[in-house]
């Protein structure tokens, strides 16, 4: 039997007000994350990956209209804002995409790392500085003692992202959400940062939710992977399994369209059509208009997330015969 998940998201729905009316960015999302694992969330931009991450932390500018976010047995959506503040940065931390903008230009590096330490662990400024030095050393930033007195503009992009990671792990969180942590970096730096994230996980046993659109990153780093489409998880499972034997037509298309997923010698094939815009999801399967295996019923019947065994799940009517049971 599997251990209890540290994060258990069920039926999460998040809506935004836009000029075009209400837009549902996250649309009934289910996701489990177990202690110490790295889960990759992949999908095209606009699939609701970031909206999901911000919803978990309750930092979304939109409105969470339904669902639960169980974290260590408590529904985060029931907590008061003050309780949420105690949790953020302490038990659940987040790393952002662009290290150029995610640091306050007017605040010394040390103070920014120390902020969470002072709020959550009650450290003094001095103690926080000391811990900040250790943290910077642990993310392999040379000259940490001097660096804590620097301002962000004195650091390179890669160095800043190390600082951001140090900030994220400062209170040894149980869950680290990393939203495209390498997208804004040079390719050579990307690898270093990814190694660092993996190293961090091993040392602190934090679970990591890694949001990315780069399947190569997922293959390299993640234990499990969840594929998002139109605000839902359409397939999830252990990384090697899922890559070797994708079940959902969208996953198949996604793998074929990137150099990491296709078989050797096979040409890259983009998925035809455009992802639905978060406003116009109608009845039936949201992927039906682009699906190469589409059947008539797909346009009318919304598929449930099916348990396929081996920790595999897929949201596709065509997999019903191979499913063991379906979730409500």
């Amino acid at each position, binding site marked *: 039997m599997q251990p209890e998940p540290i994060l258990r998201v069920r039926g999460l729905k998040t809506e*935004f*007000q*836009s*000029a*075009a009316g209400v*837009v549902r*960015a996250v649309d009934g999302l289910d996701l489990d994350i177990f202690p110490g694992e790295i889960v990759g969330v992949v999908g095209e*931009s*606009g*699939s*609701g990956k*970031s*909206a999901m*991450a*911000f*919803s978990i932390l*309750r*930092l*979304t*500018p939109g*409105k*969470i*209209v*339904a669902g639960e976010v169980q974290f260590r047995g408590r529904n985060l*959506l*029931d*907590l008061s804002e003050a309780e949420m503040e105690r949790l953020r940065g302490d038990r659940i931390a987040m790393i952002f995409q662009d290290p150029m903008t995610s640091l306050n230009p007017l605040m010394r590096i040390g103070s920014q790392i120390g902020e969470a330490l002072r709020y959550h662990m009650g450290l003094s400024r001095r103690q926080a500085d000391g811990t900040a030095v250790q943290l910077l050393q642990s993310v392999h930033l040379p000259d940490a003692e001097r660096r804590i007195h620097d301002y962000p503009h004195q650091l390179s992009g890669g160095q800043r992202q190390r600082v951001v990671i140090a900030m994220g792990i400062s209170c040894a969180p149980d869950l680290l959400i990393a939203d495209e942590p390498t997208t804004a970096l040079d390719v050579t730096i990307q690898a270093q940062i990814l190694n660092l994230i993996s190293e961090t996980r091993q040392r602190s046993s934090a679970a990591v939710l890694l949001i990315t659109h780069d399947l190569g990153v997922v293959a390299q780093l993640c234990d499990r992977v969840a594929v998002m489409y139109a605000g839902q998880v359409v397939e999830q499972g252990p990384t090697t399994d899922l890559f070797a034997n994708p079940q959902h037509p969208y996953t198949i298309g996604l793998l074929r369209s990137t150099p990491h997923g296709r078989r050797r010698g096979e040409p890259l094939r983009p998925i035809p059509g455009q992802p639905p*815009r*978060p*406003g*116009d999801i109608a009845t039936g399967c949201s992927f039906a208009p682009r699906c190469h295996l589409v059947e008539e019923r797909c346009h009318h019947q919304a598929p449930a997330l099916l348990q396929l065994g081996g920790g595999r799940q897929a949201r596709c009517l065509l997999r019903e015969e191979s499913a063991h049971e379906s979730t409500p």
Partner: protein
Amino acid sequence: MSEGSSSAPLLANPSFPSRRPVADTPFTRLARNRLAMFGLVVILLVTLLALLAPVLLITDPNEINTAARLKPPGTPGNLFGTDQLGRDILSRLIWGARVSLLVAVVAATIALTIGTLIGVIAGYFGGLVDNIFMRLIDVLLAFPYVLLAIALVSALGPGLVNAMIAIAIVNISFYARNVRSAVLSIKSMEYIEAARASGASHARIIFLDILPNIIAPILVLVSLNIGWMVTETAGLSFVGLGAQPPTSDWGSMLADGRRFILVAPHAIIMPGIAIVLLVFAFNSLGDGLRDALDPRLRKGGR
């Protein structure tokens, strides 16, 4: 549920494409802006009244009637009351609008022409030319606007035409700087590079490729600037450096009324409201234009 819109301003919007309304052009954006439309209507109305002043059935603005001095607003025959010589304030406001608008528009045109020329040349050619022009502009900017106007008027002598020239000169730097940065922002665009590579002359590139593409920002500059010029003309007239009798604009009406502030405050209230209304109209139209033409600059947007 829990996290509502209360935290909205604190958060960057996670990127996902949102659907745009069907028609979203600068024109429709402007048309939807109620304040800007209000401004446009006021400007058109004032312009129309000013143009039609000679044919409107209103009292002669210079007709003195000592029997009816400083009558309050609402007096039959003198809707806005009369001034210290018994002249009809409404009629004087309408005729004064001709002066105020004309001065502002002419001054704006002069400043716009010279400023745009300087800005385009400095931005387009760059290097030494740019340096020289910009140092000169820096010197102009070293004077608080009104002060430079006052210095110029004192050199040229008080009078409406001189006030207009002074106001025009003072605003050259405003146009030159803004036009220059607009030129710089499009100078390195591909179509300009392409034109240059194809051997087009500088004049051709400036007039056919650059100017047409910076008309939108220039339009915004003008509408924001004219309101300021209306205030400034009135100000110079108010302190006696602008319109000289018998010519009269809204500023000199205020100066006249000021002497009777104790007994007839309406003599300053009416012209003041006229100025505020017109300037407000230009400012709100200018703001609306800016928002409509460049959504990135939208108030409060990023």
